[in-house]
């Protein structure tokens, strides 16, 4: 079986499976915004974006967007029936107040303990923290959606993050192009593998030791 790394679209499709009916969900900038396109139309998921929209939907067709209806990445979005707008203080009240059931954020690094680093590359000397620290503090469940390794093949899932943190012990689930890993009190639990990959191969690209789920299986999207 050929070893396949999941594309961003496939990762977004897998992440969409984590969103239960009725959940209030925040999608971070970058890859996570793709998740909006993969929520089944018959599943009622309330998408919230920190720039003040509740109830947005998939991206509009090319050229049909409204610059006054954008997501957290500044990309144009559509509105679902029942959407509404809130100002920034209310938007972060939703986040920090524990009203977001699931947040999906991109990450540079995630640690064994669920620490998240996603806002600054130390070598750049300057970074943009945006709303990520608030989501890390406030979301009931935080999912990191990230590439498993750096461009030169080094692990991004580490014993300890080496980049400045966005939040401590906040990540509950990691979805990468290679695996789905749960952060548990006992350690990182490998639950799913990208097609064609073995646990051993994923372990080699992961710094902390992975526990194997009894029902370890292939990612299905």
């Amino acid at each position: 079986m050929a070893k396949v790394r999941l594309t961003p679209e496939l990762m977004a499709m897998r992440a969409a499976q984590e969103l239960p009916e009725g959940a209030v969900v925040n999608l971070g900038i970058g890859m996570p915004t793709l998740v909006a396109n993969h929520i089944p139309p018959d599943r009622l998921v309330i998408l919230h974006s920190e720039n003040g929209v509740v109830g947005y939907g998939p991206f509009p067709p090319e050229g049909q967007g409204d610059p006054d209806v954008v997501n957290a990445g500044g990309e144009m979005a559509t509105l679902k029936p029942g959407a509404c707008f809130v100002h920034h203080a209310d938007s972060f009240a939703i986040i920090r107040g524990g009203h977001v059931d699931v947040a999906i954020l991109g990450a540079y690094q995630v640690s064994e303990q669920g620490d998240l680093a996603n806002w600054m590359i130390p070598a750049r000397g300057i970074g943009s923290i945006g709303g990520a620290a608030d989501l890390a503090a406030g979301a009931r469940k935080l999912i990191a959606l990230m590439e498993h390794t750096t461009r030169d093949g080094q692990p991004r899932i580490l014993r300890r993050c080496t980049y400045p943190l966005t939040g401590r012990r906040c990540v509950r689930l990691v979805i990468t192009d290679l695996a789905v890993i749960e952060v548990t009190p006992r350690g990182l639990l490998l639950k799913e593998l990208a097609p064609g990959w073995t646990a051993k191969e994923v372990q080699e690209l992961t710094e902390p030791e992975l526990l194997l789920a009894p029902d370890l299986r292939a990612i299905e999207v």
Partner: protein
Amino acid sequence: MSTNKVCATFREAVADLFDGAVLMIGGFGGVGGMPHYLLLALREQGARDLTIISNTMGIASAMGFGTPKGVRPVDVSILVENGQVRKAITTFPTSPSPSRPTAFELAYRRGQVELETVPQGTLTERMRAAGAGIAAFYTPTGVGTVVEQGKEKRVFDGREYILECALKSDFALIRARQADTLGNLVYRGTSRNFAPIMAMAARVTIAEVDYIVQPGELDPEAVVTTGIFVKRIVKRPSHTGGYQGMGAL
């Protein structure tokens, strides 16, 4: 994360209110914004030892506020009189007229209830803080008065402030004008008052509304309370105009 927020009856809407629950109840004090039918249902339901967070402890039924003789508006007094209230956190435990005391004031004089009197802005801000994930804040309100007793004081920019803590609840009973089935709410006039803030601060917010519409029927720019904050909605009887509409008994 239930997606069916519409309750068929008021009884169903308040069925799980438990003994000892902390409850926010909307309304400024008069008839507007008061969740009359939820209050009536809660009296029937009978949960006891309640802590009530509300602007007044039933001044509408003490004062009348324009209702005709012999007609009495529904407010939290009906719970006090029914022995369901253990404690109030409120700004107005008494009515403006000492000769027309609230049921709560009478119960307080008999030593049957506890009272925490809080300035209105502080009460509101404590609820908002709870809803917004803020643990505590420094306010100038009450410095140099009994309000500061037992609280930490601190100087910022040469001015004294008091530390006040977030105030959350198990349930909020509020009234709105319209809801869509996702729980988005719009209000009418000054009856908006505490409802949007209580909706944020309660674990379960229950809204009594005049109309329920489908998602998309409310203007997204004009929604005041997002459905994220509302767990249950229930429609008032449509025949209740006039003083009945104001929840008169």
